[in-house]
């Protein structure tokens, strides 16, 4: 992608469990600066530190930076850790036709406690063909909102068939503004997801609960950029590895979940030029194995479960094994405990007292770092066995995700990529340059996407409606920053909605394109 424009740079930042990485790429996708800093407890500090290093390395060229892309684990951590979540008022519209399963029926109790201020089901909603189930019970909505005043920071509203008929959800959002004021945010199901009430409802509630967490990141990023006098477009990477702008991330924080594995897979593809490969991302605590198909992450066939809750978010298919650079080597076993971020304080080669997998890899000659002499020169004992444990589990996992197909190379990325042996289960191993910051590279080079979902009539009107849906998806991608020239529809999913009588088809269209050069 070398277009005739002024020189411009973009920065990719990846916030991992152990390290926060940042890279700067030029308009020909060459890496021109990079940084790796420990992830801080508040997460934001590490991001600022990494950004500062990259900007310092760029020097005068820092002024050419036009965009910053961030992959963040804040949202995942918040849901899994049940912390920093907003208290959400959960409202379902369409009580009479959906009461068989009430809202949040299968939520883990601790998540419910951490994220929910109250729930209610009210009359309203529509049938698939638009016929009203009942008028929206405005009085019941007002009563519910009145009960929540002062207790709920956000409202999640999900109506039956709202992706096709959003009117009642929009009316509730109006009522929230008038009854509770503009400070209370409303997440609406029709903006969050597809048909499938329970998964959409769960996603909508999580999205509302995650607002403060991700808003803190977007505003911290804004401040950090201001400090450096950078006036740039800011983007966040999504579960599918594409970009959304910071304002979109503020409204749809849920979409940042799963971006880590997507970025590492995309980064591995871009660093190696491979479209089909197994990618092993070795971090401090785990090694995550994913599969590249056509240069993108293979999607999981199973529905994605986040913090014990089933959602409608497509996720990369990732198999994790509990071995990373910080994995502790015990007398009788290897891990799963990890010293994680404290590796430089605890590992033997760094003068610490805890044998880790990093020490084992140094002993085996795979890594050259720290002080090898601290490991002694004996037969190795447990350190040798730990490397064997890792190799065996890695081989099994690679065999599982590749289905025994050995013609695909394994791409080793991540901060502890050096742990990966020369071959794995008969697969060759590729070690691209900058493999240790592959996630940040993946973030910097992520594509911009636009999605549109609608229901179109079957039969004669279908093609026109489909064309309109395609145009809408492309327009949304371009509005989100994609270059109109390279933007194309990459996915159309059609699902029939009835067997007999009037038939209609649910259509989901996704368009992606490269980020447009700044004008």
């Amino acid at each position, binding site marked *: 992608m070398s277009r005739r424009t002024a020189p411009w740079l973009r920065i990719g930042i990846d916030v991992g469990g152990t390290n926060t990485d940042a890279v700067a790429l030029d308009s020909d996708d060459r890496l021109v600066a990079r940084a790796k800093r420990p992830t801080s407890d508040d997460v934001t500090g590490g991001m600022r530190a990494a950004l500062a290093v990259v900007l310092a390395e760029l020097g005068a060229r820092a002024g050419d930076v036009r965009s910053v892309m961030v992959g963040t684990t804040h949202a995942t951590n918040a849901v899994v850790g049940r912390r920093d979540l907003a208290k959400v008022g959960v409202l379902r519209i369409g009580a009479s*036709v959906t*009461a068989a*399963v009430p809202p949040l029926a299968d939520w883990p109790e601790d998540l419910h406690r951490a994220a929910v201020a109250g729930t209610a089901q009210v009359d309203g909603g529509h*049938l698939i*063909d638009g016929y009203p189930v009942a008028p929206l019970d405005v009085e019941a909505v007002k009563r519910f909102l009145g009960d929540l005043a002062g207790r709920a920071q956000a409202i999640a509203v999900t109506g039956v068939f709202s992706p096709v008929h959003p009117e009642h959800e929009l009316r509730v959002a109006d009522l929230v503004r008038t009854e509770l004021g503009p400070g209370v945010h409303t997440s609406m199901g029709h903006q969050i997801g597809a048909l499938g009430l329970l998964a959409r409802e769960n996603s909508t509630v999580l999205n509302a609960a995650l607002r403060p967490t991700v808003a803190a990141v977007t505003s911290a990023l804004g401040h950090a950029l201001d400090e450096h006098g950078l006036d740039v477009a800011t983007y966040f990477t999504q579960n599918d590895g594409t970009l959304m702008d910071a304002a979109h991330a503020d409204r749809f924080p849920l979409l940042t979940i799963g971006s880590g594995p997507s970025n590492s897979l995309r980064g591995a593809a871009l660093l190696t030029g491979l479209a089909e490969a197994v990618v092993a991302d070795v971090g401090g605590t785990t090694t995550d194995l994913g599969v590249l198909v056509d240069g993108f992450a293979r999607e999981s*066939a199973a529905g994605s479960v986040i913090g014990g809750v089933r959602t409608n978010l497509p996720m990369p298919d990732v198999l994790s094994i509990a071995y990373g650079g910080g994995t502790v080597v015990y007398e009788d076993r290897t891990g799963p405990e990890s010293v994680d971020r404290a590796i430089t304080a605890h590992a033997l080669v760094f003068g610490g007292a805890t044998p880790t997998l990093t020490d084992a890899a140094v002993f085996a000659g795979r890594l050259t770092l720290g002080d090898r002499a601290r490991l002694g020169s004996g037969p190795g004992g447990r350190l040798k066995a730990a490397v064997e444990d890792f190799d065996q589990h890695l081989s099994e996992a690679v065999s*599982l995700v590749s289905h025994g197909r050995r013609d695909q190379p394994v791409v080793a990325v991540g901060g502890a990529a050096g742990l990966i042996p020369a071959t794995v289960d008969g697969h060759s191993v590729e070690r691209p340059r900058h493999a240790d910051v592959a996630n940040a590279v993946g973030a910097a080079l992520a594509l911009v996407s636009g999605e549109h979902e609608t229901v179109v009539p079957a*039969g004669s009107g279908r093609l026109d409606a489909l064309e309109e849906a395609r145009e809408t998806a492309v327009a949304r991608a371009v509005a989100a920053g994609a270059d109109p020239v390279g933007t194309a529809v990459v996915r159309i999913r059609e699902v029939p909605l009835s067997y007999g009588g009037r038939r209609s*088809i649910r259509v989901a269209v996704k368009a992606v394109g490269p980020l447009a050069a700044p004008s």
Partner: protein
Amino acid sequence: MREQGVLTTADLEDLALGCAVYGTGGGGDVSGESLAAFLALKAHGDVSLVRMADLPPDGLILPLSMIGSPTVGQEMLGSGREAAAVREEVERLTGRPVAAVMAMEIGGANGVAPVGWAAQLGLPLVDADGMGRALPELQMVSMHVAGLEPSVVVLVDALGNLATLRPVDAAWAERWGRALCVASGSSALLADHLLTPADHGAVVHGSVSRALEAGRVIRTAEEPMDALVTALGARRLLTGTIEDLDRDTDEGFVRGSVTVSGRGLDLGRELRVDLQNENLVAREGESVLASVPDLISICDTRTGIPIATESLRFGQRVTVIAWPCDPLWRTARGLETAGPAAFGYPHPYVPVETLPERNSR
């Protein structure tokens, strides 16, 4: 170990997995129905699973199924009062108490939901169904093949609208039932072909137990794909990667196909599976390797978990398996009802186990 003859919340995961296997790609996502059944079992207690022969000779059996679009069923979850309304109407019409609930269709969500309905009604569930798989039309049931007429059809929707139909035959039951279902937003609970134990030849016996077993195998086996093939007495048609998904939606009916490219031992081979909600026919080149009414399932190779038609994606690693249908579908009337010709195919039906094997396993 499961207590013999009792279904508890602990059985639902296996049942859902097994019903997805017998759903052969259709029958809808089972997760919503599983949750509804879970809540019903928690609220109303466990359900006994009985053989038809264990019921009193005049015991009235209520075959139930949701009809309409599975996609709609995942959105309009129901009021939770539908089963009670149907039972009340059936008892009023017949003047007899209902003795047990039966699944009309073991495949997909309709195999899981009856556990919840039985719990709500405080009735046992018969270990049988009307298909031994999933099929798209009302007359595609074992009772029809056995020559029974659907003399009374009761439909109720989530809003509480209820209709009793007295169609002249199974085809009219389908036509009228569909029309009302569409008016109700493409989802309704339906009871037809009321049975007694005297009709033991008109159902597929042991369906619930078989689904539970298939699910248990997938969940617990170390090599789930191999174990499932063995448990079903299935044939492994091909192991590979989804290479192409093609959906022709003319006429509003999805007649699609999925192409799977062989990997490993199957390298160089290519299989095409035709779908029309369910997986209907598996072909290699011009040769039919398996055909409806035999069952064809596309499973995740690693986990053995069957993949629903609408969840198929490019690049998935899958194993396509096929196994024999219930013998009643292989009778002349069975094939007329749900054989290749009933789905518009010109090829003659050949039982899957007698077709030549293609792969090297």
